[in-house]
């Protein structure tokens, strides 16, 4: 027995401590008993009525989503009030009766508001989320709201909720970069719940609405409300915590509404294609358009009226939901000739006044003729004249002399073949092949790089680019600025804090010698002069530089391209226009660019 190891307790201190513990425990129990007294005796009647009527529920105060505005404050996306009819499943007494009653409700046109199949589906969902309001009919008209509200006592569990809907006042204007909202997919919901999303919420699923979702989305408020037997709101339940709603941040874009509108008007809806206008001094996107367009308001309509339009959009073979300005890839055609020119001059492959074999409309390479777009030929041309009239034969010879490596290297320097990193969820990178990448890509088909590819490459037919890359590229030719990352975000204000415009981000330094730049200047300018291919984009008293292009399209008629930048010595705007299946760039694409430029310069 190791009793010696046990310390004998000191009787006195033990009893004193026991008394201290007695008192502590008794005090704790007293506090709890007092609380019980408060809620059971003092507030018993109140809680009793709450428990009997069961007329209390959580109310979600929808926070309004931030606006989207252009750089001068013109509203591009806003919110409008709307009503929804929802069900709180735990208050439903009899599901079948409720369903029957709901099916009887008709709007003024005599149309049923609810369909049986849809109700069944919604009720199943509601049974799994019994404490959350589950939407049965969204964006209902005010007369339906009146009918439902009159019959609330016959519709236990049914509530009418105020909500806001996204609205795009300018309809299709800028729809591709603005994007649209959609309901959160059910499987994603649980992971989003902790970011204060509620079931049935909408979130950005395309364009800027998606890209800046966390910024423009506000935080919904929550409170608990008591209802009377008619389902009318009486008062807030004071015992419950309140979460105040917080508005989302307003988003200001680099877009200039005037320029965007001019572009939208200049580009006919019947044609497919894209327009991008950029400020080469910082990468601000002034206008961005893709055609055919869609109306993002369709996505915020009620489920019923949405289904039809949605089907049409998805099935449309011209793919209106595709933002061609950043995800459309096209051969650059003759607009690429300036890359060839830059590479040749900057690497001193040719002299300034070097003349090649005259153009007869054909150029024989090996045993194959490569044609010039002008069948009757251009005769002997120099470099500036070659760009001005876009003589293919001249560029074949220039390309062979420069070599594929230099051409591909300069193409990459101008930002081709890699994503620009624009702040939109999707972007294509395009492709610039050189000997090595070509052989790797087509290895499975057994194709091998031939010198003939170099000819195609030099006139822009072997590679693919996106309109945004084209705009960025043309803006960097004479500007003495690096290539900036194009972006739509200008600044943001709101409860989440002021977010200033981010600093310009350099994609590539443009390493061109002054002589090269001067040569490019003259060539771009010459294109716009009488006899050049881009005359239709001229602007009074502003020196505009440009280049037309025609991209061969194996699937159909050629695509028309036009790139322009102005004022040519210190550019503040650079434009790329692509019109699908429209033939020559000079006749179709250049006038569109011209209209945009004239609006931009107030001419």
């Amino acid at each position, binding site marked *: 027995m190791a009793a010696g190891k046990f310390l004998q307790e000191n009787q006195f201190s033990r009893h004193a401590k026991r008394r201290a513990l007695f008192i502590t425990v008794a005090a704790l129990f007293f506090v709890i008993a007092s609380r019980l007294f408060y809620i059971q005796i003092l507030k018993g009647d109140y809680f009793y009525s709450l428990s009997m009527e069961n007329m*209390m529920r959580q109310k979600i105060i929808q926070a309004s989503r931030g606006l989207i505005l252009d750089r001068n404050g013109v509203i591009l996306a806003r919110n409008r009030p709307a009503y929804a009819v929802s069900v709180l499943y735990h208050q439903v007494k009899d599901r079948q009766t409720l369903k029957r009653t709901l099916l009887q409700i008709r709007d003024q046109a005599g149309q049923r508001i609810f369909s049986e199949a849809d109700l069944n589906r919604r009720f199943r969902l509601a049974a799994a989320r019994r404490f959350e309001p589950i939407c049965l009919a969204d964006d209902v008209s005010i007369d339906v709201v009146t009918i439902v509200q009159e019959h609330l006592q016959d519709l236990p569990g049914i509530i009418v909720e105020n909500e806001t809907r996204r609205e795009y006042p300018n309809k299709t204007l800028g729809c591709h970069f603005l994007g649209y909202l959609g309901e959160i997919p059910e499987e994603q919901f649980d992971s989003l719940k902790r970011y204060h999303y509620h079931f049935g919420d909408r979130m950005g699923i395309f364009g800027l609405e998606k890209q800046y979702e966390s910024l423009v989305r506000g935080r919904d408020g*929550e409170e608990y409300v008591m209802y009377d037997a008619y389902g009318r709101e009486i008062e807030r339940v004071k015992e419950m915590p309140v979460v105040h709603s917080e508005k989302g941040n307003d988003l200001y874009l680099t877009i200039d509404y005037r320029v965007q509108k001019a572009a939208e008007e200049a580009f006919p809806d019947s044609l497919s294609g894209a327009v991008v206008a950029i400020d080469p001094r910082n990468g601000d996107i002034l206008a961005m358009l893709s055609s055919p367009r869609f109306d993002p308001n369709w996505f915020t309509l009620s489920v019923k009226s949405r289904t039809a339009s949605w089907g049409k959009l998805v099935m449309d073979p011209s793919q209106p939901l595709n933002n061609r300005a950043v995800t459309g890839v096209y051969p650059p055609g003759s607009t690429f000739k300036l890359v060839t020119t830059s590479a040749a001059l900057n690497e001193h492959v040719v002299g300034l006044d070097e003349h090649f074999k005259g153009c007869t409309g054909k150029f024989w390479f090996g045993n194959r003729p490569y044609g010039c777009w002008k069948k009757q030929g251009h005769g002997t041309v120099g470099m500036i004249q070659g760009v001005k009239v876009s003589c293919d034969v001249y560029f074949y010879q220039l390309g062979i002399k420069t070599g594929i490596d230099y051409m591909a290297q300069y193409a990459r320097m101008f930002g081709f073949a890699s994503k620009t990193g624009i702040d939109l969820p999707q972007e294509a990178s395009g492709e610039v092949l050189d000997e090595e990448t070509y052989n790797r890509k087509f290895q499975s088909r057994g194709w091998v790089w031939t010198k003939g590819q170099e000819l195609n490459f030099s006139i822009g037919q072997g590679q693919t680019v996106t309109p945004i890359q084209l705009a960025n590229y043309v803006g960097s030719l004479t500007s003495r600025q690096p290539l900036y990352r194009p972006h739509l975000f200008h600044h943001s204000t709101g409860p989440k804090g002021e977010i200033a415009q981010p600093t310009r981000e350099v994609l590539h330094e443009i390493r061109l010698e002054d002589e090269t730049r001067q040569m490019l200047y003259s060539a771009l300018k010459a294109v716009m002069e009488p006899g050049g291919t881009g005359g239709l984009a001229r602007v009074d008293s502003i020196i505009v530089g440009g280049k037309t292009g025609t991209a061969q399209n194996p699937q159909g008629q050629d695509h028309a391209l036009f790139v322009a930048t102005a004022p040519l010595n210190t550019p503040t705007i650079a434009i790329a226009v692509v019109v699908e299946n429209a033939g020559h760039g000079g006749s179709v694409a250049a006038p569109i660019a011209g209209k945009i430029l004239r609006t931009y310069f107030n001419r």
Partner: protein
Amino acid sequence: MLAQMKHRIDLPAAFIMYGLIMIGIALIYSATHLDQDVFIRNLFHNQLAWVVLGTAAFYITAIIPSRTYYDTAYLFYAFTLLLLVLVVVKGTTAMGATRWIVLGPLRLQPSELAKIGTVFALARYLSSKPVSLEKISSLIVPFAMVMVPMLLIVKQPDLSTALVFCAFTAVMLFWGGLSLAEVFFLLSPILSLILAFHLFLWALFFIILFFTLTRFCRNLSVITIILSLNFMVGIILPMAWGKLHDYQKNRILTFVDPQRDPSGAGYQVLQSQVAIGSGKFLGKGFLEGTQTRLSFLPEQHTDFIFSVLGEQFGFIGCLFVLLLFLALILRLFFLAGEGNNRFLNLCVIGVAAQLVFHICVNTAMTVGMMPVTGLPLPFLSYGGNFLISCMALVGFAASIRKKNQEY
């Protein structure tokens, strides 16, 4: 049999305990008898089975001689630690937390065993070594002893069970030699954490702490450590918290409480309050609860059993049960003050402290005075592991008088 038991076991304590258990079974039946799920409807059968097992545990802990407890205290402690590590390595996950080891049909929750093991080990250590705040080194071993299982449980994560450790450790240290002031100093960082939400209150607390510390404590390094700990918790933590992004905060909060659902939890507490409050003075009567019927409270038979009591038996019923709990606790304190065996007394104090913590936190939660935590109510809540461990603890404590005579 009863005469034999009477000799061995403190009858008042045993009677109170069985009384509470019977009330609990009635309440579990009341909370579940209308459920659509047959399994839920029959839960009170399970609880009855647990009571049989618990009675065996109660009897076994009562007849084991105190020498065995003392001798095996460290061994048992090491064994429970091993089980906790096992949970980390290959435990079963449910509702975002890994707390269980599955043995065939049984789901063992080692944190329940760890609570017992730690009480015994701590009691053995404190019974032979004096502790004092003046000599910090004397506190290192007991702290380490508690921190190891605590951290393993926090990792599960099960913060509320981990807090039980803080509660009984503080009380046992108090019994084992620290003064009230010293216990207050030790617990002050936790108080700081609670008060940190209100800068003014915290500052007031800090000033009081400063003066009491300088008044009662002579060891300068202790003063510095405690003050800087409080400062860190009260000032730097909230500042760091403010710097965090919303999603990071959410991540931490979800770690602290995996079942966290800001709106859902508030709703539960309110429904629980409505249920209790609507019982008024006399209650709606057994099986007459409306809140129960409408199944507003998904966990009414476990964590929110007290709201069933409040609704059906009113203020009178709640008071009666609280008085039963109080009587049981005071009886245990009384027993702990009687004998001269320091180890046994410390054990009983630790057991009583555990029960107090569970009772207070759980009832305070159901009446809306505390946030929702996952702590069940002893003897009343449904759940095998917790019931058996509670019964075993009381079995041990109620036989202390006989055990004292063994020396």
